């Protein structure tokens, strides 16, 4: 297709677009497609998909609204953005849910055809927002999607129902025009996607083009926007979600250590995709096992580690709860094990498709007995790769279970990932015991890791289990002093992991008014907020903890260099309590428990008000 070049363009630096519609409207796909093009265009970007817990809630209700937000820019981007510049609302329910977020003056694209009385009622509108003034202050583009799409795909040979399902590609086309995206790659992608059903390919292509042309035709904007590529670090990039990066990190860990991976898992939102992805990487010495439940999943993983594989299991909060007892067994038997928790809204079944950071307590403290293990957290979608690799390394080198915390927003969110070179990835060795001379299953190396002797090794036959073990032989021991020794040894082994951490180096100001200590998926919002707060003259540092347990040894010292500590979390203050309990650090919490990420503005204003409150008094200055 040849598209007339748009007349004039407005170059901007960044934009936030949100696609919203019914669960059946294909908004996740639309968002993903737009994201790919932004990535290939060279923009930096961050995304935030948000969908309901039902497969498909009743059509047209607010419960069924599915959304996908992307921020893309000509510069570095850290969060998916607080407020969309452009909102696509495919029905009144989507408008109901998302209108409040649209930036004043922002562009609103609505599906005119979907605002009948019944539609409005189902969505809970008392009167028609298209006509009652609700949309004042926005730039509204009303489109009769049904009609335009039907016309566009006429003759493509698809049913009326299938024709109507092309609406999302019409919307995509329009947004492509608005942001002056090239259409070629997308056209190829559409053909590939529907390769098995050429008539569907044709219909969606037509809808896509029609949407693009519609923008041009109606002169929806005086001039469409352009956002040049970002000046990112040079190298090869790929846009990636957290779960995909995590799965690749695990595969990399297997390859870099020479260990077979055994991934035992039971499906649960938002962790299931890790199982799906790894199931496709089987030829990389990856065994995947969909167990009957979470307990069997971790138990099998432990069995595999005993046998010399790297046992891994993944779940979300409720599933982690079920794994608790078995984690104790892994701690007692001191076997490598990686336990991934892609956190979601809790407690109980909670908000399965929403994001939250409320499983820190469970990860650090949630086991019977004195049962320490390592806990680490990833901070961004691409960072899930590195974090997974790090979790595996610690597990193998220290012979310990490691809990890796991710969350729903990381798992499904995406960003460009500067591909690492394999040569630069860390290598680590399982260092299996093979020599019977002087062998004892609980003899330790300098890291306090015990000998890992695997079945198949002649002369090292031994037995382990969950009863307290003799400090050397690993035989059952009920001896009082041995127990105390072992409890302290297990604790010390974990504590020492911190001795190998690099120095804590705050981002931005390394002393000053406020230190923001964060962890996990809030990294992007905090970073952007710090950048903005510093622009207003406050001296702010940012430490984003990868290691939740053990904590970095120098954290107190670093913190002492600031007047005040801000600890933003998507929970009621779990890291805050953890830091106070562990190292006596007093921080101020910024807490949000809404199943949603922080807005940048929320964090920024917390930094600013804390800086104001803790500003040195006149006397101090004098």
């Amino acid at each position, binding site marked *: 297709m040849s598209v007339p070049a748009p007349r004039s363009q407005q170059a901007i630096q960044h934009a936030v677009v949100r696609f919203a519609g019914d669960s059946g409207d294909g908004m996740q796909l639309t968002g993903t497609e737009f994201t*790919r093009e932004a*990535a290939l265009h*060279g923009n930096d970007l961050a995304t935030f998909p948000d969908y309901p817990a039902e497969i498909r809630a009743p059509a047209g209700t607010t419960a069924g609204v599915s959304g996908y937000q992307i921020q893309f820019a000509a510069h570095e981007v850290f969060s998916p953005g607080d407020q969309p510049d452009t909102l696509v609302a495919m029905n009144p329910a989507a408008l109901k849910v998302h209108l409040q977020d649209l930036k004043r003056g922002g562009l609103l694209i609505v599906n005119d055809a979907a605002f009948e009385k019944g539609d409005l009622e189902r969505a809970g509108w008392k009167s028609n927002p298209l006509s009652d003034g609700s949309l004042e202050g926005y730039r509204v583009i009303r489109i009769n999607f049904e009609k335009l799409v039907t016309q566009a795909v006429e003759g493509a040979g698809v049913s009326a129902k299938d024709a109507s399902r092309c609406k999302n590609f019409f919307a995509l086309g329009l947004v492509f025009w608005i942001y002056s995206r090239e259409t070629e790659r997308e056209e190829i992608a559409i053909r590939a996607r529907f390769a098995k059903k050429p008539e569907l390919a044709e219909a969606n292509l037509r809808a896509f083009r029609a949407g693009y042309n519609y923008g041009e035709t109606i002169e929806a904007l005086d001039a469409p926007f352009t956002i040049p590529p*970002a*000046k*990112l670090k*040079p190298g*090869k990039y*790929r*846009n*990636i979600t957290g779960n995909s990066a995590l799965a*690749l990190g695990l*595969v*990399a860990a297997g*390859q870099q250590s020479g260990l*077979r991976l*055994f991934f*035992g898992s039971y499906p649960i939102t938002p962790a299931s995709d890790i199982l799906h992805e790894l199931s496709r*990487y*089987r*030829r*990389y*010495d*990856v*065994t995947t*096992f969909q*167990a009957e*439940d979470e*307990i*069997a*999943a971790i*138990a*099998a993983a*432990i*069995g*595999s*580690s*005993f*046998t*010399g*594989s790297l046992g891994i299991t993944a779940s979300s909060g409720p599933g982690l709860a079920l794994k608790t*007892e*078995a984690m104790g*067994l892994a701690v007692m*038997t001191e076997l490598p094990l990686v336990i991934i928790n892609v956190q979601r809204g809790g407690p109980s079944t909670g908000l399965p498709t929403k994001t939250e950071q409320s499983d820190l307590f469970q990860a650090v403290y949630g086991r019977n007995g004195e049962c320490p293990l390592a806990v680490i957290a990833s901070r961004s979608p691409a960072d899930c790769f590195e974090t997974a690799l790090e979790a595996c390394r610690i597990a193998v080198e220290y012979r310990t279970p490691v809990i890796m915390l991710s969350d729903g927003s990381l798992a499904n969110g995406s960003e460009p990932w500067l*591909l690492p070179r*394999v040569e630069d990835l860390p290598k680590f060795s399982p260092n299996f015991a093979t020599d019977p001379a002087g062998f004892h299953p609980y003899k330790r190396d300098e890291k306090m890791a015990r000998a890992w002797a695997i*079945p*198949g090794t*002649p002369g*090292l*036959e*031994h*037995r*382990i*289990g*969950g*009863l307290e073990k003799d400090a050397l032989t690993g*035989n*059952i021991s009920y001896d009082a002093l041995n127990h105390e020794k072992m409890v302290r040894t297990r604790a010390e082994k974990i504590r020492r992991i911190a001795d190998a951490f690099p120095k804590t180096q705050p981002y931005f100001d390394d002393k000053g008014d406020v230190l923001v200590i964060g962890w996990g998926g809030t990294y992007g919002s905090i970073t952007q907020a710090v950048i903005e707060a510093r622009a207003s003259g406050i001296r702010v540092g940012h430490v984003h903890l990868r290691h939740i347990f053990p904590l970095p040894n120098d954290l107190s010292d670093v913190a002492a260099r600031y007047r005040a500590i801000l600890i933003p979390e998507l929970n009621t203050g779990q890291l805050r309590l953890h830091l106070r309990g562990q190292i006596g650090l007093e921080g101020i919490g910024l807490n949000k428990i809404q199943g949603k990420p922080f807005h940048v503005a929320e964090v920024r204003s917390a930094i600013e008000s804390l800086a104001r409150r803790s500003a040195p008094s006149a006397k101090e200055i004098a």
Partner: protein
Amino acid sequence: MTAPLLKLTKKDFTSDQEVRWCPGCADFAILAAVQKLMPELNVPREKVVFVSGIGCSSRFPYYMNTYGFHGIHGRAPAIATGVKMANPDLQVWVVTGDGDSLSIGGNHLIHALRRNVDLKILLFDNRIYGLTKGQASPTSELGKKTKSSPLGTVDRPFNPLTLVLGAGATFVARTVANDMAHMTQVLRRAAAHKGSAFVEIWQNCPVFNDGAFEQWAEKDVRDDSLVKLEHGKPLVWGKNKDKGLRIGGNFSLEMGSAEGAVVHDEKREDVTLALALSALEPPWPQAFGVLRAVEKPTLEVLAREQEKAAAAMKGPKDLAALLQSGDTWEVGTGEA
């Protein structure tokens, strides 16, 4: 049976750990039988793994001089599934109790069996919780008075054999710890089976459930109360082999004279006969020996075959290529 090549002895399979069961416990007999059988199987010690849950019976691995894993309560089949999938070369045994495998661990048991993981599962059935000192188990008879049921249990027991056959087990057998010859023969068969092998071993617990099986498993009563199963042989019993299981009305089994007795067939694909035999309970003679032995593909083999097929189709491992798969783009060093 081929002559042992490795020339191991019972002693090679005896660990240095003191055996901690009560005097008179039938677990001793099972341990002795297994330790004696092992050399004959001709598998190097280091390739043998015993996995257990928690219970008196589950102390078993400590006493075997092989690799061993004393797991947590009920989870042995799951741990063992991980062991076997991670290294299909190993010979993996699971030792479990009636509480361990039928109460808390019931689900893992039936799933291991449906998957046909190549595990040898020995259920030491003493119809009681031994280690926790005498509560009812899922095989305790209805109405049984125990510490946890002073007025008698109100839940009907499982029939372990029917349960596991219902779950799709490919090898199912029953024996008793006080019949060394029979037990050894059954264990040998289980070891030879490629796939999940389930063996219920009646095991007397003299401390908390003494005499649970004496009415039918003691030497002097066995002939009349158990029907010994032999593949290809008619289903007959009694001191004089004069009683037989025959086809009764409307597709049922009936007791009658030995003449015309149904012929036992372990290898039948359809599970009807095995199920019917498993369901026999006193006053019927109870099935004793191998009920079913049908070979099917095993989980760990299927899984490895898939891996190989994937490698054959998609080519060798290449981490760099994997990382770079999907849509990628370059950002140059100069100005964009």
